[in-house]
């Protein structure tokens, strides 16, 4: 038996091979790259110490992108989790059947390609003949340019919330259904109303799950390139530039591989911090 358990180990090799190819090698190479002078035309990259880090930190665009990335991440996550929470409460109160219909249809935006979602919303946001502006005019407003410099970041965030909140709702619903019904019934017999039940029983019991979900959502959103880039390419100007799009442009527009790698390193550190936070929160949730 023990012998068999040891033999099973070699089944891990294919996974390890791909993980080394897509994670370990790139991480090490990127660390190296961030300390070197490396553009498209470099033959022999020289070691330049912290020069790239200083250059990136001295670049105002980096801070614009960081600020945008934080706004985009925080707003996305807060609205996804809050909307997901209330959707889950609603689904929990309805019958199995209602839940099934909702589940089957609500995840559609989540499984469609982000580029396709971007086309759809460009069409909806269109200032001349978009559906949204039809409603704006119907309500007596002036047509709005949703992808303008002032609004673009919020419009892109709204698309992200729309796309993902049902996904979180299903996770939270699974958490709600794991709460034993007796607890709620006992509280009701003691005279607790719906609000008290939510406030003092449901919410505290769900808090560990909500925290973990929120942190995962934070990591995913912070690194989410596809939707932002296909909707706005970071524009207009730098209105929706986030760190991921900035790194991409440094590679393919400015051809500064070293700056791009350094931006990647900053993203890596921010991610690392978030992951540590997830670990500590989920460990505390288990005990």
């Amino acid at each position, binding site marked *: 038996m023990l012998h068999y358990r040891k033999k099973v180990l070699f089944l891990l090799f294919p996974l390890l091979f791909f*993980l080394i190819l897509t994670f370990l090698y*790139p991480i090490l190479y990127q660390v190296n790259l961030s300390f070197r002078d490396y553009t498209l035309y470099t033959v022999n990259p020289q070691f330049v110490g912290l020069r790239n880090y200083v250059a990136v930190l001295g670049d105002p665009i980096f801070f614009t992108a960081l600020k945008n990335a934080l706004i985009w991440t925080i707003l996305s996550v807060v609205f996804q989790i809050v909307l997901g929470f209330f959707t889950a409460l609603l689904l929990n109160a309805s019958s199995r059947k209602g839940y099934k219909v909702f589940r*089957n249809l609500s995840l559609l935006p989540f499984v469609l390609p982000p580029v396709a979602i971007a086309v759809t*919303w460009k*069409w909806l946001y269109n200032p001349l003949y978009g559906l949204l502006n039809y409603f704006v005019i119907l309500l007596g407003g002036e047509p709005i340019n949703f992808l303008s410099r002032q609004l673009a970041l919020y419009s892109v965030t709204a698309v992200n919330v729309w796309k993902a909140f049902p996904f979180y709702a299903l996770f939270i619903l699974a958490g709600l259904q794991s709460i034993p019904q007796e607890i709620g019934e006992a509280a009701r017999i003691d005279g607790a109303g719906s609000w008290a039940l939510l406030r003092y029983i449901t919410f505290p019991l769900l808090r560990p799950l909500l925290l973990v979900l929120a942190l995962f959502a934070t990591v995913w959103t912070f690194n989410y390139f596809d939707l932002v880039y296909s909707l706005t390419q970071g524009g207009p100007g730098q209105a929706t530039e986030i760190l991921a799009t900035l*790194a991409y442009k440094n590679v393919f527009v400015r051809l500064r591989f070293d700056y791009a790698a350094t931006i990647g390193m900053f993203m890596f550190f921010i*991610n690392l911090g978030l992951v540590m936070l997830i670990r500590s929160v989920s460990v505390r949730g288990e005990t």
Partner: protein
Amino acid sequence: MRAKSLSILSYYLLIGLLLFFILIPIYWLIMPSFLPASEMFTFPPRFFPRTFTLQNYSDVLFTYPATVTIEMPRYLWNSFLVCGVVSVIVMVVSTFAGYALARMISPIKKSLRTVVLFTQMMPAVLFFIPIYLLMRRLGLVNNLLSLIFIYPGMVAPFSTLISEAYLLGIPEEIEESAMLDGAGVGTILGRIVLPLSAPMLIAVLVYSFVWTWNDLVIALVLCHANEVRTASVGLFSFIGAATVEWGGLLAGTVFCILPPLILFTFFQRYMIQGILAGGLKT
């Protein structure tokens, strides 16, 4: 009694309203793609079309490849090729690794799960620069092989968690008797475990196919030349093309959403169960 049925009614109304908001953008993508240009831009817009045309679709399939070198059929084929190969690789890799994790002794297992989780939380988007430079050195930029090398490592961590969660549910006793008869790992996997794992395999297949189909950033970095574009990259280059009409763009987008849409519609039960099982364990 009456109050209760009233509140049930309001529940369904609220759920219906939510669904309406979730689905209307997708309806507003598919419906106008069947409209002639003259009807697409009517104001106020019509929610139920009176005319129907396949003109936009024939533009995408036949006119654009010849006139503006936007070759959607080729992009779709590229995507099918890459997604198919990657999904098969991921199914093998994550079944192997998931089985190993499910049957292993705990100390190594815990640290391995941490590694898997860590890679899951550190998306390779962070590292697309080294990946691009590596592929450039190997001469694989603008070669679909580069995607086939890179995607499995990004999809496999999570699908390994899916298969581990499933395989833990298969009782070890079934395997033990085969072990006593002297069966090796390969025999047990192939004869006993795999025949019981259809739901898990479907979940992994759908997850990896859809993930790979939907990715933009890696494909954009590694395969941007016209003849190797995937559906997402092709559609992305479509967005900026000045010569393209909205009708053609919407029809091209519908082509692009069809595979995930179909896979998800038929196999969502497996996929949702898989994702919840893999995700809730983390």
